[in-house]
């Protein structure tokens, strides 16, 4: 077995510079790489689609971006629905047959990630091919990785070539996850620090005798969260939570309780 090709995306390192989104357009706009892919139109499709999420409320907020290309699922839902059009290469890259994908709008609907786009100009369904034409050395390029990873200035996107066993080890060690793993729990695109995008937090600030109360023990009831000491400004934050009912305790005494559907700043609490 040859090496597989992966994209590892660390959500905590992305600040929405958009180099991935734009380098992808740069690679395919005005450039036909058939039979890998026809060109991409100037506007419209987002083969690399950056999603934004804010958590919390002023002034205790968090902002996070999730670059979302084709997840190169294994097995791929699109391949299941369109086995004649979709193939998975030995290196894991999921490809659309550029001839057979013509006129196939149904492909757009079967992708649970919304990662397949319809090119109205060329009348064909298209998506990220992990720059397979570059990886195969068929693009006249002096680089040898997907454009998005090459252009990423923060190492939010890294390109990895590894055999499956070695990569499985990395998944375990770094806590890599599949985005929306209900749709597909295996493939070539993996996320790090995904909780920033998929989980919630409860945050607040402690004040004692008119001063920021730092170094105070804060605990959360309702989740298996370790005890915290409040920070320099009396701030605490319990992250990685699911929607649910929780209580915040300071030195064993409850200062807040409630049910959250999304991240919540409970504000400043006098203790």
């Amino acid at each position, binding site marked *: 077995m040859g090496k597989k090709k992966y994209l590892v995306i660390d959500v905590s390192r992305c600040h*929405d510079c*958009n180099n991935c*989104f734009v380098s992808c357009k*740069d690679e395919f706009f005005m450039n036909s790489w058939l039979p890998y892919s026809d060109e991409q139109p100037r506007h419209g499709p987002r083969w690399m689609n950056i999603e934004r999420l*804010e958590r919390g409320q002023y002034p205790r907020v968090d902002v996070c971006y999730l670059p979302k290309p084709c997840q190169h699922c294994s097995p791929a839902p699109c391949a299941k629905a369109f086995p004649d059009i979709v193939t998975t290469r030995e290196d894991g890259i999921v490809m659309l047959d550029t001839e057979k994908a013509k006129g196939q709008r149904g492909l757009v609907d079967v992708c649970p990630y919304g990662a397949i786009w319809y090119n109205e100009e060329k009348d064909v369904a298209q998506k990220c091919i992990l720059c397979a034409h570059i990886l195969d050395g068929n693009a006249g390029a002096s680089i040898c990785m997907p454009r998005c990873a090459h252009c990423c200035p923060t190492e939010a996107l890294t390109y990895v070539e590894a055999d499956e066993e070695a990569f499985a080890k990395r998944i375990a060690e770094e806590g890599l996850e599949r985005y929306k793993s209900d749709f597909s729990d295996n493939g070539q695109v993996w996320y790090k620090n995904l909780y920033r995008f998929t989980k919630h937090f409860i945050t607040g600030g402690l004040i004692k005798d008119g001063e920021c109360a730092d170094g105070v023990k804060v605990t959360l009831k309702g989740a298996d969260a370790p005890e915290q000491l409040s920070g*320099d400004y009396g701030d605490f934050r319990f992250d990685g939570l699911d929607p649910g009912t929780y209580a915040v305790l300071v030195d064993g005494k409850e200062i807040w309780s409630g049910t959250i559907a999304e991240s919540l700043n409970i504000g400043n609490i006098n203790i």
Partner: protein
Amino acid sequence: MGKIVRKAQGTTGGSVFVDVDVDENKIVRVYPMDLTDEDPPSWEINARGRNFKPPRRTTCNVFTTGYKSLVHSDKRLLYPLKRIGFDVNGERNEEERGTPRPGGEPNYPGYERISWEEALDTVANEIVRLKREYGPGAIIAEPSSHHLWGHLGYRHSTLFRFMNLVGITYGEHNPDSWEGWFWGAVHSWGMSNKLGIPEQWDLLEDCLENCEMIVFWAADPEATTGSYGGFETHYRRRWMKELGIKMVFIDPYYNHTAGLISDKWFAPQLGTDAAMAAAIIYQWLEDDTYDHWFVENRVTGVEEFTAYIKGESDGVPKTPEWAAEECKLEACEIRKLAREWAAHKTMLSAGGYGGMGGACRGASGMEWARMMVALMAFQGIGKPGVNIFSTTQGAPVDTNFYFPGYGEGGISGDPENSGMLFRLGYKMFDGVTSMPAGSNINTAAGVFIPRLRIPECILDDKVEWRGKGFAGASIEQQFTKYKYPADGYARMQMYYKYGGSMIGTMGATNRYARMYRTKRLPMVVNQAVWFEGETQFADIILPACTNFERWDISEWSNCGGYGSGAETIPSHRIITLQQKCIEPLGESKPDYEIFRALADRLGLGGAFSEGKDDLDWCKQYFYATDLPKLTTWEEFLERGYVVVPVDPDRKRTPGLRWFYEGREIDTPSATRYRPSDQIAFKGLQTQSGKIELVSSSLKRFYETTGEVDEGRPVMTQYLHSWEGHHTERFKTYPIALVAPHPKHSFHTHSDGKDGFMIDIKDHRVEVDGFYYWIIRINSKDAEARGIKDGDLVKAFNDRGEVILCAQVTERLAQGTAHSYMASAEYKPIGTPGDSPDRGGCVNILSPKEYLSKTACGMATTHSLIQIEKWEG
């Protein structure tokens, strides 16, 4: 796909490789440079037991990565154009500018195609006629701030050579990104040769080794990238974070850098930052946690200033409680910040270059900048780990290697307007076969026009101001008074615009649209690359090509002049021969060739070009620098770039350490100083040689002129913002809009133009086929107005109206809105200058007033506005 060849290029957003399809004359891809073993090793920093090395791949801004979409765009001007209804020898119909007659070319409505010969003859003949009939001063040239990258093509170079040889008046730029530092902080500590901001040399190592806390005050280096530095400094802040350096952010917007590394965020009400700073100093005085030795030995005016802080002189102690009310913050958090600051070796990142950008550009910019200096005066600026440090400049590259920045004049040899000493000129021009083109008209003794007042100069009879352009030759240069029309000079008859759009960048910009539509401005020429913004107000349009279609030479991020030190932002000093990638599209020409053709018609062709083309000038420039020490011209021509090696023996000279230790200045700044900037070559540029909390220069200014300027007091202090919550305007316009430098475009350069950047979700939003600019609104303000995320809204005040797309957010306090400035699109829905703009020029809403009566800088970052849902 034809044959693909790799070229090197330089851009505003980084040095890059460009793959070119030579058969199809098109750009295939633009991408960062991977340095190889043929390139010299990178620097390394050993600090606190760790070894830090920069990546061997360059980084670039998104507008560089997406440049192909700007080069190959339907918005490109591909042949010369004339406005329908404009007859240079007959009826000119000036009032039709901006609303031209029906017809014309599909991509250029209202304009008809003309030949280069007709276009050049029209412009050249008119130049001669105006000079004969009106005399000097009749023709004004006005470039945009950020044209195409390249030391040949930049405005200081090719334009100035033409302008100076022909005798055209310069529409001067104000120090638009430095304003509060220049008009304010200069009077605290001089530094006029950097427009009031401090030097940054070697502060990266100092920070990594010694610093324990950084306060980013109105600074977002991930968004503004130290101006031209790509994302080179991202790693450095990651290292700092990994070392445990605490990160505090003070910014009305929870900015992009904060999103990555913030430990604490403060969002003082707009215009109240100086109050927060005053309260921090109050707490230090209370706690006795300031640097006594430094204050006693390096600072003057301390007694008067501390009496003010303590409230002894005005009855208002500047306590954290007082500031909390003013700033809408928690008093205990301000107090805690003061204590944290004093307890740690703290660096203050107060803008893109150390200073610059952000809060300095608003109505309260001078007080803010002066108060930033005061903060550091109390903590001993210059000692290890304590400084003003942007986290952008200050990498340990070889600063002794001579390669000038664009501000050094290029082929004009004219550093008059850039703050450089005449240094390149001596190396560039032998005085026999090649001559510089200094200015004989655009000097302080000649005539010029400030671009902030171009509308008034055209529409009003008389205009007065102080300070000539980037007036940093001395502290006092900004005091000199000027008027329009200057004695003995004609009024403006021709406006020669060189690229870009000011409607997106100056204050109260409906003024500019109105000025075009009057017979008081008889002719407008626009030499530009794209049909956009102000191009659409021209009578004659001369189509220029981009730097990808011609030769140029440059160093990444090296602007030189007032921006000296910017070459230490990228991790490697990369000098590129900007290799011509493709032939100019359509009939467009290099700017140099357009000026050369005009010069020919004006009898100045020989003097302008000396028989050289753009590549010949690149070669002459090459030999004027230290490049021949590293490579040959032939090699450089072939390879396209050179990386300057690191000098392991270079002496480290951290910024202002010499001042702290009371030594002679030893930093590279010394070569930028005129000896007379320091008295007896000691101390700062101020009269005392120290940091002055009570300014000797302002005191002298007011005493000698009899002026009273309450907007710029002699002592550093907090003033109520004249565009803030204490004003009458606030009752009608209760939302404070902050409009900082944009993240995904560089001023107007790279916005619009049908490029990829307009598809960036946080840059523009498409609604019904039109790409709207974004305004960010706090969720409570949005709810109160029935505004939902993605709705179109009207932001307005008595200065104008702009239709924008709402982004509802928690990254702002209630009462504050955020929208980047510098839209390249200006799309009035009715009469230009008097109807809502849906292009996104939020500077329509900002003040035209100067910072203060005598401080003639712009104050555009803060505007009081109202917002409502747009139902139009």
